[in-house]
């Protein structure tokens, strides 16, 4: 076999210019697909991390309690069971956060805008501001220094016509459905993740709780920040199991396999609750204590992940098309090579070389071009990724959520690299197969007598 490889290597060197052209085309295709794969994987990971700061975590547990035995309100009063369940995932969790959320109408003069308002314990979430792209103002304050500060998304501030430092009114319903009004001072205006609907306005948990009618120590959502975003679902499963074991009433609507309509209805209820759209509901079957519902960022981000998956699929499709064009070049090149080497093939066959060996030499040539081109493509992708990653894109508006501290992150797995290389190799071998077979099937006498 080594003889075959050596001959193939020598032949590849003999036709250096053709090899470089074919290898270059392969390298370009592989470079493009590698960069795209790396960018989408990095962007998804960054979005998950950035959103974890702004939405409070990766795994969310909301609680509902009964009032008067019939009215269901969104509230976690006693979280001893949640604390106990955390022990099962302690090594995989960075931090836990407690938040409350309401759908609020912000009013400034004659303008009114309805948006989600989230209560954040700023002192307990020092990394909170990392996920925000601040356009104006400051996010460095806490409930003690400015309990009525609010961070408004740019779209809300623009529609209200409000500036940093000014005071807006906020109208919302308490957890039991009473009208309430508060006053908030605009501390900062931030960019938002347009289209995904996962951003909110933020104020101190303490003040929002007072407007919602929650007692000190009560809140609505228990959020868990996971050390590695790839382990979100595992942590969620373990928390769910631990809560069940402790005897807590717990639901995992998006993961529980039931009828689609039922799942959608219940999943939407939890998501509505998470975004402060829960209202007082009447229940037929009362229960004791707190009923928990668990949802993950992966489930909330399904549209984002799907969009990225589609982008990946499109990129891979373009990659295959580029390779097919290259394959036509390989086929044509090899046909030319066979014509040029017909007498050489005849001589080798006359000296007793088997058909399969002749075929192998041509296939090895194709494989070597593919491997060399692939390696060059990966090298180029690595260099470009390194350069792009070192650039600061924090000033590009609307791009902030895809970045980590202003920089693009390129993530690619060995599996993705192996798959791309396998596609390159497969297409090149397939392209060379017919010319290689034609060369192998040349009758030695005819080949020796050929004149080109």
């Amino acid at each position, binding site marked *: 076999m080594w003889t075959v490889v050596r001959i193939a290597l020598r032949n590849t060197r003999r036709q250096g210019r053709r090899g470089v052209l074919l290898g270059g085309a392969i390298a370009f295709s592989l470079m493009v697909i590698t960069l795209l794969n790396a960018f989408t994987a990095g962007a998804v990971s960054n979005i998950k991390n950035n959103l974890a700061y702004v939405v409070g975590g990766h795994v969310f547990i909301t609680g509902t309690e009964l*009032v008067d035995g019939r*009215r269901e309100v969104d509230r976690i009063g006693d979280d001893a069971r949640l604390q106990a369940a955390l022990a099962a995932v302690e090594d995989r969790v960075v931090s836990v956060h407690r938040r409350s959320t309401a759908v609020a109408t912000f*009013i400034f*003069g*004659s*303008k*009114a805008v309805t948006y989600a308002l989230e209560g954040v314990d700023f002192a307990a979430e020092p990394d909170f501001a990392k996920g925000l792209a601040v356009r104006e103002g400051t996010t460095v304050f806490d409930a003690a220094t400015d309990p009525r500060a609010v961070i408004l998304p740019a779209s809300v501030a623009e529609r209200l016509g409000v500036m940093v430092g000014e005071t807006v*009114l906020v*109208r919302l*319903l*308490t957890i*039991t*459905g*009473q*009208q*309430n*009004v*508060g006053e908030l001072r605009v501390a900062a205006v931030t960019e938002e993740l347009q289209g995904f609907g996962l951003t909110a306005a933020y104020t101190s948990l303490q003040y929002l709780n007072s*407007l919602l*009618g929650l007692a000190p120590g009560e809140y609505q959502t228990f959020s868990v920040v996971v050390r590695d975003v790839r382990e979100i679902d595992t942590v969620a499963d373990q928390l769910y199991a631990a809560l069940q074991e402790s005897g807590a009433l717990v639901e995992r609507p998006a993961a529980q396999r039931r009828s689609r309509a039922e799942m959608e209805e219940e999943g939407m209820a939890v998501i509505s609750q998470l975004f402060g759209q829960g*209202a*007082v509901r*009447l229940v037929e079957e009362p229960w004791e204590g707190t009923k928990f519902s668990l949802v993950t960022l992966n489930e909330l981000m399904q549209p984002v992940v799907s969009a990225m998956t589609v982008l990946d699929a499109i990129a891979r499709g373009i990659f295959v098309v580029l390779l097919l064009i290259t394959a036509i070049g390989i086929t044509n090149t090899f046909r030319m090579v066979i014509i040029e080497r017909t007498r050489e093939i005849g001589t080798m066959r006359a000296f007793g070389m088997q058909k399969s060996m002749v075929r192998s030499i041509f296939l090895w040539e194709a494989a070597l071009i593919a491997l060399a081109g692939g390696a060059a493509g990966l090298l180029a992708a690595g260099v470009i990724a390194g350069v792009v990653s070192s650039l600061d894109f924090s000033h590009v508006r609307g791009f902030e959520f895809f970045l980590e501290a202003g920089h693009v992150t390129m993530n690619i797995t060995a599996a993705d690299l192996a798959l791309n290389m396998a596609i390159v190799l497969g297409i090149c071998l397939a392209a060379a197969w017919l010319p290689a077979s034609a060369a192998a099937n040349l009758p030695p006498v005819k080949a020796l007598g050929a004149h080109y």
Partner: protein
Amino acid sequence: MTSRRRLLFIGALVLALASCAATALAQEVDVQAILRAVDEQSNFGDRDFAAVMTIITQDPEKGAEKMVVRQFRRDRENKFLLLIEEPRIQMGQGYLMDGDNLWFYDPESRQFSHTSLKENFAGSAARNDDFSFRSLSEDYRVVGYESGALGAYDVHIIELEAVRDDVSDPYLKVWVAKDANVVLKMESYSLTKRLMRTALFPNYIRVGDKVIPRVMIFVDELVQGRRAQVTLDEVSLSDLPDTVFTKAFIERASR
């Protein structure tokens, strides 16, 4: 004591006595009975109610808009139905309240969605629960009373506090006409005691033994310039078929 001092003393005594008399008079007023009378006026009991409402909303951003809504109410079963007839773009939309459930029907998607009495009606300053019966005597306790005047009318001015934590308006201040026990003005306050809305009822009509506000003006006190005026026409207390208060009726009426 000089005659001047004597006069001053007598004057002060008269004033003090008058003040005491007024306070005693206020204490004698059975405020709870007034609230029950107000409830009685606005509750149709065994009778059904139907009317056509013209709602003119003024919004600083959207400008003025007119809406015509057909309203059906059956207080004894805690039901109401609102069907939007104008503007053309919203024609066929409807609200159906049946007990604890309030449904909104969108003819475009042909689907019902659950909504809340506490939501604003079609984005106006009026709320869905403005079109249903609410009991002042049962849902609120009296926390203040004074006698006064509103324009040319002598009124009871009553301050109320909700007795339950699910009553939409935690605090109310109502101006009730003394001669007819009808509400002329109502202020709604938030849980933080901020004035949110003023409702004015300047015009009443008598239908059978009931006195019904023909014109209602709702002024949003938080959003400057936002207000709604509701005018009732074609008022009727005739019996309505049971089928009126059903989802099928809204669907049929929307075609």
